[in-house]
């Protein structure tokens, strides 16, 4: 069902876990779909210097979260905002058709985390 790269990220997820004092947090998904993703970012000098995820979801959801953290670690916030869900799926070498819409939401969670960070730091 899933290709090797997806299975690798599912089995050995990168940057899984909670971040204690994140600069920003974003959460997406809903229970009906069965996928909930939470992305934590640490931002320094407009760059994502650290990133973690927590995901309740299927293999595709976990792998998307994992590969996304690798893709954007070290990137500027603007660069990270440009990453789409489709980029994530492509980076994984593709996902099954049925999984593209519901479980491939990691970029959305990231964008929310960046927005969260920005909203908190607007006044600053």
């Amino acid at each position, binding site marked *: 069902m899933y290709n090797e790269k997806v299975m690798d990220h599912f089995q050995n997820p990168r940057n899984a876990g909670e971040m204690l004092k994140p600069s920003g947090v974003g959460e997406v998904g809903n229970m009906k779909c*069965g996928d909930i993703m*939470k992305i934590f970012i640490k931002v320094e000098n407009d760059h994502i210097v650290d990133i973690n995820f927590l995901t*309740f979801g*299927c293999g595709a*959801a976990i792998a998307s979260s994992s590969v996304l953290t690798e893709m954007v670690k070290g990137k500027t916030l603007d660069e990270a905002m440009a990453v789409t869900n489709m980029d994530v799926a492509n980076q994984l070498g593709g996902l099954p058709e049925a999984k593209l819409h519901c479980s491939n939401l990691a970029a959305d969670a990231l964008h929310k985390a960046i927005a969260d960070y920005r909203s908190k730091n607007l006044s600053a």
Partner: protein
Amino acid sequence: MKRIYLDHGATTPLHPEVLEAMLPYFGQVFGNPSSVHSFGREARRALDESREKTALALGAAPEEIIFTSGGTEANNLAIQGVAEALSARGRHLITSAVEHHAVLDTVKALGKRGYAVTLLPVDGCGMVNPGDLKQAIRDDTVLVSVMTANNEIGTVQPIEDLARICRERGVYFHTDAVQAIGNIPLNLKEWPVDLLSLSAHKFYGPKGVGALFVRRGTKLAKLAFGGGQERKMRPGTENLPGIVGLAKAIELAVTDIPARSTSMAALRDHLIASLMEQIEKVRLNGHPVQRLPGNVNVSVSYVEGESLLLDLDLKGIAASSGSACTSGSLEASHVLMACGLDHQTAHGSLRLTLGHGNTLEEVDYTVATLKESVARLRGMSSLYKSYRREVDKSRHAGEETICITKK
């Protein structure tokens, strides 16, 4: 890697004796049963004998058996066939909310063609209440269809009671016994059931062949047109090797059911108990007692079912989450939702279905593997983190999770 198959609800391996019974019909005996010559007659003899064997296993008469291409076709023939045959008498159909899609979607399709449909609710264990059926039957009801045993949660329905209610009211009763054959004793001499579906690959027979029992005198329209096979109710050259295999498989399946299902149920109960003991926040779905001897269905809170399946699969263990037939869907199981589960709990469901070959060692290895997987997945689950925080805060023990009847 040694592999462990715990998905007998999806399909079963072919019994070696069944294959042996089939092989001659892939070789020397290849005639068309409709042909008058010796090749045809020997095929016809095998067909007749298979029909007799199948009937005998069910307590039916040979002419009450229609061979089909599987359980899905049997269900469609029963429901579409009765609905059409009786459309002048009435257009109300009753089924349960936990049926397999081959029943549920057929009834719903008829709903779009002008039939009225009542879906009977189930309690928290997936049980239909005979009182609900009594109330649902109307003057224009022509068919009630309730499955013998559920494919996801294993709940065994009170078929004899439900059928009796229908018989008293003069309404046809159909039951999808696809999961029940070989697991619970079933005698059509005693059950006032009018139509019953089965599928060979669920009881160690071949895929692509099933049967519909149609009690003598039951009005039925056919779905497909062509040759005069199967008493003119199901045209097409007969799948003779498949039919011979079905007959052999059902003969084996109904032998010694009480003994075999008792020992399988013991293994099942050990599996359930081990899961509950060794993993926190596991809920048993389905009925604690009125349950298929091989069926275990649990919801593991804070993790999603498919990721559990993948972890198990990486260790060689085959399980399922809901019905294999509908794995293309992203919706949580309609069966679990009908039992009153919330979406999260439904998405965290795991089905382990035992077969005759499974051992205690396999079961114990599966529990240990699952325990590790749950720990790993909960480690990345935001839901589990929130739960732990709640627990740590309140030291609250968490609610009871055993089978709660809805009303």
